[in-house]
């Protein structure tokens, strides 16, 4: 029987964070993960994270994963891969399957950070090949470099559906629609807007009636739902599609915890006390295994579990514990605010904290109407080049403020506040804000660059990268062609972290309407 101070199950964001934090306090730590590669979902998160600097905002998930792995090596954490924790037995014994045998390990603290599994829904044909979880599609694309299909319908407009939907576009798939049974888009408006300006239609209050095909998916039929969530006859819509992605929520992988006898709450999540400690002494839950949230909070949750265990095991004095706890819980609190915070789930807010009306168009079609833009403090007319920040919901994020060298953008201490553009500051057009925004919601507009023309700089994450002089079409927020547009330049810089800054020339009156660009004629 091998013994560690702490055993962590799961080498994802929560588990690795727990491990490195614990190791930094002197604990001997082993991490087991069933996958061949560490990082959990981080290495398929090719998008930039939200939050603030302390949450590693504007960093892409896989870069966060790489940094965490380096930290694990530096702190001497033992990471064992291809190692399935098959059971969590009495006396904090973890039995691990590795290779052709099982091994018995014990630890004074066990952190279960096993992540989540994807939910599914049953409809006619849902067992056909071609129906898959959105996370599975993401793994195929971003880990295995396999395109899941050519024409995809996404069910679910939460952040997973929206983010994966965009990545499907990046991978060269056609996204025929995003459907959701709910009447409002569930994820961040900025994520929806990325899809809408590429022309992806949203069907709210819709669900899948059936997947068509024999042997594999060849089509899908969706239907509108009435107030009792029943399909409205006559509202059926058919799409040719070879892939249906389901992004209908996640469930904690808390089986090990329940096997160990950890009490559960009424909603089925494991009951967690401060530091993620469960009802079974010495056993902790962190990340999605403790309750579905997202990677940024999972990483903090992992660190909290680690300091709790470190204190319990005598590696951390009470004073340091209290200070660290306050710091980490503060970080967590700053993420758990705004209209998407756990405590606000299910509440249909009508306006932002600032009193700006929420756009019903954004919630229903995925984009802001042109006449709504002026309602938000990030969208102000100004002379010369200036940022236009189409960030209209209270989400925890402030890189735009952090990166601006001129102080043009202010979010303030409360990171869910809407960014405000300071007209008195001088924008140099450096574009750092455009590249930094994880929601790709910042644009540079210069309506005075050339007589009769405006230059619009937009974030661009598609291949091939356009070249100066390329002719094409500017698309509006809803993906509709608005005018011909020529590429003025497309800048890539290491500071932009793989987001290109595409500057297009459009007629002046299109400066506040053109938000995407497509090569070729409309």
């Amino acid at each position, binding site marked *: 029987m091998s013994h560690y101070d702490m055993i962590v199950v799961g080498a994802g964001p929560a588990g690795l964070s727990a491990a490195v934090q614990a190791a930094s306090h002197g604990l001997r730590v082993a991490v087991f993960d069933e996958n061949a590669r560490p990082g959990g979902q981080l290495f398929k998160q090719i998008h930039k994270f939200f939050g603030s600097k302390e949450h590693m905002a504007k960093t892409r998930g896989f870069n966060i994963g790489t940094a965490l792995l380096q930290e694990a090596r530096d702190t001497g954490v033992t990471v064992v891969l291809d190692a399935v924790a098959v*059971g969590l*037995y*009495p006396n904090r*014994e973890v*039995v691990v399957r590795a290779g052709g045998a*099982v091994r*018995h390990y014990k630890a004074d603290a066990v952190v279960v950070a096993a992540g989540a599994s994807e939910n599914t829904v049953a409809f006619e044909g849902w067992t056909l090949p071609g129906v898959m979880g959105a996370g599975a599609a993401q793994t195929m694309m971003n880990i295995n470099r396999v395109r899941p299909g050519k024409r995809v319908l996404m069910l679910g407009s939460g952040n997973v559906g929206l983010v994966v939907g965009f990545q499907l576009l990046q991978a060269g798939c056609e996204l025929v629609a995003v459907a959701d049974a709910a009447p409002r888009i569930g994820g961040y408006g900025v994520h929806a807007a990325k899809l809408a300006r590429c022309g992806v239609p949203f069907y709210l209050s819709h669900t899948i009636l059936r997947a068509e095909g024999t042997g594999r998916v060849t089509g899908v039929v969706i239907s509108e739902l009435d107030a009792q969530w029943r399909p409205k006859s006559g509202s059926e819509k058919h799409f040719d599609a070879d892939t249906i992605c389901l992004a209908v929520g996640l469930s904690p992988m808390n089986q090990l915890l329940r096997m160990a*006898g950890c009490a559960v709450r009424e909603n089925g999540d494991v009951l967690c006390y401060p530091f993620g400690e469960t009802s079974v002494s010495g056993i902790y839950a962190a990340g999605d295994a403790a309750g579905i949230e997202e990677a940024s909070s999972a990483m903090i949750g992992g660190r909290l579990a680690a300091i709790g265990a470190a204190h319990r095991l005598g590696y951390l004095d009470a004073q340091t514990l209290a200070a660290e706890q306050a710091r980490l819980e503060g970080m967590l609190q700053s993420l758990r605010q705004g209209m998407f915070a756990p405590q606000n789930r299910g509440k249909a807010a009508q306006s932002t904290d600032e009193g700006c009306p929420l756009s019903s168009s954004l919630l229903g079609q995925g984009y802001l109407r042109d006449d709504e833009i002026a309602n938000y403090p990030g969208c102000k007319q100004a002379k010369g080049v200036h940022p236009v920040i189409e960030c209209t919901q209270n989400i925890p994020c402030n890189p735009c403020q952090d990166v601006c060298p001129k102080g043009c953008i202010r979010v303030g201490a409360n990171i869910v506040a809407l960014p405000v553009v300071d007209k008195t500051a001088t924008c140099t057009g450096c574009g750092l804000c455009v590249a930094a925004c994880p929601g790709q919601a910042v644009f540079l507009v210069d309506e005075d660059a050339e007589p009769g023309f405006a230059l619009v700089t937009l974030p661009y994450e598609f291949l091939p990268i356009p070249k100066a002089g390329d002719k094409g079409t500017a698309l509006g927020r809803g993906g509709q062609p608005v005018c011909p547009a020529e590429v003025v330049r497309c800048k890539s810089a290491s500071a932009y972290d793989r987001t290109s800054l595409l500057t297009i020339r459009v007629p002046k009156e299109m400066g506040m309407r053109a938000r995407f660009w497509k090569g070729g004629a409309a």
Partner: protein
Amino acid sequence: MNNTADVIIIGAGVIGSATAYYLTRKGHSVIVLEKSPFLGDGGSSRNGGGVRQSGRDPRELPLAMYGVKHLWPGLSEELGMDVEYCQSGNLRLGKTEEHLAILRGLTDRAAACGLGVSMIDAAQARTICPYLSEEVIGASWCPTDGHANPMLVTLAYYRKARANGARFITGQRVQAIQKVRGQARRVVCGDETFEGDTIVLAAGYGSRAIAAGLGIDLPMNTLLMEVLVTEEQPPMFSQMLGTAMADFYGHQSKHGSFVFGGSSGFEAHNRDDGRPVNHSITAPCICRGVMGYFPALAGTKIVRTWAGWLDEMADHIPAIGPVAEVPGLLVGCGFSGHGFGIAPAVGTVLADLAAGDTPPLEVSAFRYDRFKAKL
């Protein structure tokens, strides 16, 4: 709601549910009280499914033989649910001369009681089950033994009894049986009280505490036994399997999973946290036991393991029948890990006794007060 019935049964396991069914078939009203929120949550759903006669204590053998002859064959039809009864024999395997000596002893005792069981050699055993390891040198063979699906049998009895009008109440923990004018009559559960002309106590190990309230001791302990279940495999063999050394026992179920029970040897001393928990060393031990006899199963995957308490009586056979000091009370508990196969017969007997009818079998060997000091 009327809390009075002809018979109040405590425990909705296979014994209580079977008794309830046979009583409703006779036209009696029945209330069944179950402390768990789930039916059959004790040993009734947590057992290896053996419907064996061989290897039984001679006192139990008549019940086992009666069930196999009269009850099991028609049970699925009678209850309107396929309970996956499969009567294709029991092989008890031996690898050494010592093993064969043990098997011979068991076989001789059972044969003396009239059971058709015999010793067979390795070739005969391999004819019956071609997957046996080369190390097997002989076996005992009882062709009339078999197995059924324990998860279904209890629910099938429940379903049919309920359809016949029996009232089952789960999550109803019995605190006490009370006498009225010298006769067991009242069953107290918190705020609720139930009354019956006869009370049947079939609550597994829980029967001990309830009986103690009446001044009756049923000398039982619990033992935590563990079982593993494999992925589904094509049909390989249909016999019930055991070994002379009791390394493991089990069978392949109708849907293709193998169900193998066994022990690590520490069952009497294992700790638990109030739940029937698996222990980390047991499943590996069962695997080694199985592979020692069936090497072909080495690549078969285990999908789940589970544990369950058995209620072990001091002399390893149950207490069944009336209690002299408590007229109106019948007990049926302490089945010591082999109650499933005899449950239909025991249910029949308890229903007859509760109804005042003469049961088909005499059960005085199972008197609750049979325990005497060794000298």
